[in-house]
């Protein structure tokens, strides 16, 4: 295997990681675009999604077998759970503070994040739980020296389908239009008769559903779940959203994939101990040289 092949292999591995980042980054980016808030708890919603699908999967798998059907059930249940959770959080914790300084919203989000994370920690006693689908995870095919696992291909394709679906939803439905309008100018939308609160709630719900999908995919791919899995994933996904240009939907997708690939390459070059340093270093460099991200619009300051 040549050096070149090793890098190609890392890019393939990076793509799958990147698609997780992208799905979560979308939630950050959409919420940020609409209410200019860093939803710190988003990473934990992703974690909740992973645990939700795991719990449902085991509940049925122990009784019925047929892992794939059970997993499908699991992911649907997780999507519903996260949608409800996302809605509830924004309704109970965030909405009272929409008009407060951004710092207050951020602190509430941190509080929510602590609650979610530690609730799962109490339930699981801080231990990892394992998700075993009973399929051969290593099966795959080779292109030259580069090996691609079936599971990677399948998960990546699912992520792509979900993202295409989201793009269609945003661009071609009434609600998508309302979301774009609210992110442009919330007050004008209120005057035009758009129920901004409903649109915000919807944004949270969609973001949470995507996080649930990403959580399940992550659980299937790595096979183990832990209560603090949302923390690092959350910061990385936010980084991805910033790289792509926060508030931009294609930006979040591209930023996620890009961060995943760069991180995989960085790991290859610097060693796995420096993996996260590399990712955060990238974030800081990005903010220094291109703070609006790849797709971000430069903001004209308005009085």
């Amino acid at each position: 295997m040549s050096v070149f092949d090793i890098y190609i292999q890392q890019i393939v591995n990076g793509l799958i990681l990147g698609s997780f980042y992208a799905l979560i980054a979308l939630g950050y980016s959409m919420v940020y675009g609409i209410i200019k808030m860093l939803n710190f708890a988003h990473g934990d919603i992703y974690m909740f999604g992973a645990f939700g699908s795991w719990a449902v999967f085991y509940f049925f798998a122990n009784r019925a077998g047929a892992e794939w059907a059970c997993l499908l059930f699991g992911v649907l249940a997780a999507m519903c759970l996260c949608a409800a959770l996302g809605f509830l959080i924004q309704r109970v914790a965030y909405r009272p503070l929409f008009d407060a300084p951004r710092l207050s919203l951020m602190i509430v989000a941190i509080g929510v994040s602590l609650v979610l994370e530690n609730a799962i920690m109490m339930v699981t006693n801080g231990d990892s739980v394992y998700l075993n689908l009973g399929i051969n995870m290593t099966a795959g095919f080779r292109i030259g020296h580069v090996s691609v696992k079936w599971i990677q291909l399948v998960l990546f394709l699912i992520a792509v389908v979900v993202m295409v679906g989201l793009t269609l939803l945003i661009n071609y439905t009434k609600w998508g239009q309302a979301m774009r309008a609210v992110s442009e100018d919330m007050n004008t939308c209120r005057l035009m008769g758009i129920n901004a609160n409903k649109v915000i709630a919807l944004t949270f719900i969609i973001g949470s559903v995507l996080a649930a999908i990403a959580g399940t995919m992550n659980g299937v791919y790595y096979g183990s779940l832990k209560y603090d899995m949302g923390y690092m994933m959350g910061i990385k996904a936010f980084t991805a959203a910033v790289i792509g240009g926060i508030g931009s939907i294609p930006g979040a997708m591209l930023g996620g994939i890009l961060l995943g690939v760069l991180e995989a390459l960085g790991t290859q070059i610097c060693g796995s101990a420096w993996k996260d340093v590399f990712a955060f270093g990238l974030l800081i460099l990005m903010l220094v040289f291109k703070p609006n991200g790849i797709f971000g619009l430069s903001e004209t300051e308005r009085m």
Partner: protein
Amino acid sequence: MKQSTSLRAFLGKRSTQWTGILVVLIFAVTLPLYANIYVIGVAWNALFYMLLALGCNVIVGYAGLCDLGYSSKVAIGAYTTAILMKTFGWNFWATLPVSILASAIIACLVGMPTLRLRGDYLAIVTLGFSEIIRLVARNLNVTGSASGISGIKSPVIFGVKFSTPWMQYFIFLILVIIFIFVSLRLKRSRFGRALEYMREDEDAARAMGVNVPRFKLLAFVIGSVMGGLAGSFYAVKMGSFSPSYVTFTESAYILLIVVLGGMGKTPGMLLGATLFIVLQEIFRNVGNSRMLIFGILLVLIMIFRPQGIWPDKRPSFLPSRRERKQLSERTETHGTG
């Protein structure tokens, strides 16, 4: 309602406040006389969190910047002192200026590019940066890798070893008093007011001539230096320091104290830290659910009492009768400039 206003009037009186300060001070100074080792230990812990809260308050409270990596600032000071003492055999006191300098330089490096940007970016950068600090400390030999640096000798102060509990207690008490002094001086000055203008309305502050990025950076550096100093003292108190200190949980604790006490209010920081330690002692047996409770607390405070537990009171800058006379005399001689 009536009762609460009269209570407020009573608490607002200068004489009440001075009595309060005196009582707290006497209590704090005489505590080692009647407290056992356990209580002194807990009290020391409270003092340590007061230091951190006072430092973090300059960044979060005064300047309204969201810093999610305050524990990394403590680590910078602690590692500077630990490395200089262990590896280079420096005297503890000689390491302090270096610790201040290191904290300030690193704060500048992090702050300069990010403070120009939107507020939320600072949050994520400070968080990311604190991860970088932890990972770098874990992976370098000079910082003792994952196990950290241990066996840091405690300095001798006035012939008494720093390692005796009551000495530790007093040193930290003095530090807290210095930090309070610094906080109050900063707050009641052109600098402190500029920070507050900025926090209240950044555009208006800019229009009044406040150099926003510069003042943000100054606040960020001051807060970081205070954290670094606290870290230096923490390192010699513990005798060791390891990367496991630098966690988001630790930073979140500090933020919680600042929010609980009331952002920007110095006495609030003292009360917040005390309450936090008391809560922690109470919930010691509850174990895992402690953070859960803190999380809920954070949400509830922000929604129902965003100004924190310490009551709001604006300082009056209006002149007293005597001052008014002096001022008017001066106006007559100088005219309106």
